[in-house]
């Protein structure tokens, strides 16, 4: 019975793949697709049976207990706490009047943070939503994407004490109601379209490629859907290169196939290649065939990543830097918040890395480190997203402590440099 079901699913998936092959921007068929049975064969992974998800508290860490002094940065950079007391902090978008909106997952809240000069005022703007991780702001309106709802709050910055009833866009966007890997990341692209992620709702399974494992784009009102990328397991962060305007996205690799891989990915959607296939579920990282979901030539026609970002590192937010505060060498460089591993015996990530891009390739180097104690195999932070402020400093949200860190740069005094040279 089960074999038959899986076969039917596979045939349906293959048919859908043919119908919506690489390069096609055609809209998907209606409906929410298949309910995949996860194919993870954990007994083959050889990983410890004790690996488990990392606990995420519902409370924020008191200011004096946030381990700021652990943070290590390159010379000239400095970290300070910008805001705190907003439990489970993740995504950040700023309104045109300067309100910072912050999305969360398990706690179901959206915060509004107002800068009062020397301190920040934190308000719970919305609560009781199902994982409202997807936020975008345009023309005075805050767009909130929860797993099961799409809402628009007009004129929000004038109504922070009483946001009122939102415009319901859920039906217009018609997103699948599956929940796993479907907390959203969304952003307006340079083309004015709303880009939305739809994850594969499993660890490893045959997805319906017409529905799951995609990045889509819509008109802001939810019409005109197009598929921008396919075969994407779970991206929850993307941004556009400031010069080429091409879309770059992080993607989280599968679990239970080994401690060291397949590694997570940084990908690019090259100009004119919208709709391309990034490999899930058959092909991972730099061309690794999946051990549980098999087909002949698993990597044929698959776009290889621009860079690998480490095993189980969980790259979430990515942001290209365009500010003037940091040294010139950081101009147009991408900052990636790596949330840190759970499906790995020796922990990895829990940092912010930079990706220096060159055409379709990128090199990854560390930037903000120190929150992973490799000796004790313990972590002290979960960096989630990165946001660039008007003055060119950047904010890093920390889901674990419910805080943001402001990273600023001061050039060494010229006199000191001259002295050294002498």
């Amino acid at each position, binding site marked *: 019975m089960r074999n038959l079901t899986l076969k039917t699913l596979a045939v349906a998936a293959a048919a859908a793949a043919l119908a919506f092959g690489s390069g096609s921007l055609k809209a998907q068929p209606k409906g929410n697709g298949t309910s995949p049975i*996860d194919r993870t064969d954990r007994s083959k992974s050889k990983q410890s*049976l004790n690996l488990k998800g990392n606990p995420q508290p519902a409370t924020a860490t008191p200011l004096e207990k946030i381990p700021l002094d652990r943070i290590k940065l390159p010379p000239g950079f400095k970290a300070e706490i910008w805001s705190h007391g907003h439990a489970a902090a993740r995504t950040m978008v700023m309104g045109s009047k300067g309100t910072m909106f912050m999305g969360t997952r398990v706690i179901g809240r959206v915060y509004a943070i107002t800068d009062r000069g020397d301190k920040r005022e934190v308000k719970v703007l919305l609560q009781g939503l199902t994982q409202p991780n997807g936020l975008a702001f345009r023309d005075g309106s805050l767009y909130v994407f929860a797993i099961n709802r799409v809402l628009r709050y007009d004129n929000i910055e004038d109504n922070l004490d009483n946001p009122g009833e939102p415009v319901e866009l859920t039906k217009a966007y018609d997103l699948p109601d599956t929940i796993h890997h479907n907390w959203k990341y969304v952003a307006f692209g340079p083309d004015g379209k709303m880009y939305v992620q739809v994850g594969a709702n*499993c660890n490893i399974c045959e997805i319906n490629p017409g529905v799951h494992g995609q990045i889509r784009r819509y008109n802001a009102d939810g019409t005109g859907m197009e598929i921008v990328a396919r075969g994407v397991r779970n991206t929850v962060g993307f941004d556009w290169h400031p010069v080429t305007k091409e879309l770059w996205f992080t993607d989280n690799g599968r679990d239970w196939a080994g401690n060291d891989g397949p590694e997570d990915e940084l990908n690019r959607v090259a100009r004119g290649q919208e709709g391309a296939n990034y490999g899930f579920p058959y092909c991972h990282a730099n061309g690794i065939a999946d051990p549980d979901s098999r087909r002949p030539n698993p990597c044929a026609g698959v776009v290889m990543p621009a860079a690998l970002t480490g095993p189980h590192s969980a790259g979430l937010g990515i942001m290209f830097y365009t500010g003037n505060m940091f040294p010139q060498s950081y101009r147009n460089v991408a900052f990636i918040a790596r949330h840190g591993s759970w499906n790995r015996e020796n922990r990895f990530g829990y940092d912010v890395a930079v990706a220096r891009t060159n055409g379709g390739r990128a090199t990854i180097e560390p930037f903000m480190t120190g929150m992973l104690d490799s000796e004790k195999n313990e972590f002290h932070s979960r960096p989630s997203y990165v946001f660039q402020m008007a003055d060119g400093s950047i904010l890093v949200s920390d889901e674990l402590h419910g805080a943001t860190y402001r990273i600023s740069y001061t050039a060494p005094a010229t006199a000191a440099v001259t002295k050294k040279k002498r």
Partner: protein
Amino acid sequence: MPYVTADWWRPLALGLAAAALCASVSSAQPVAERIRQCGACHGEDGNSRMPNIPSLARQPEFYLTNQLFLFREGVRDVAGMSELLKGLKDDDLVALAKHFAALEPRASDEPTDPALVKRGASLIEPLRCASCHLPSFAGQDQMPRLAKQRVDYLIHSLKEFRDNKRTGADTLMSNVVIGRSDDDLAALAHYAASR
């Protein structure tokens, strides 16, 4: 496929009754009074004797704290629970969690079916339940204790996960049980409760 259990209304009705009980009570009352209210349904000793109402005894404190937050904020939607916790401060929720986490768990008087227990045992390994809930099924951190939990509540919860009805939980559980039959879920519940 729509899924309705014959006893779906029970937690709802009990929740409403509990909410009605406490509606007249001021939110400024001490934690001890709240504990008494919790005990009316969840058992004074934290071991529930009511169908579909979970036992709280020796649940991990982290798990209980998280769930109390999710109820208070209306993220986890169980009739009556949000009302009962309205107005409680973060510290009050932590105090409630500490109280129930310290109590001794006792198995309910529901009959467990040996055939189902046996079948459940064969499902546990491939699903790696013990990775999170521990081999003893005592739970840890954000993962609940399943050992000595009520069978009917476990079945109810597993169905909620499978059918995308459980809000506020990590979606990993939905992924683990997606596509599983009612029989599989009953087997898992009977096995876990019997630990």
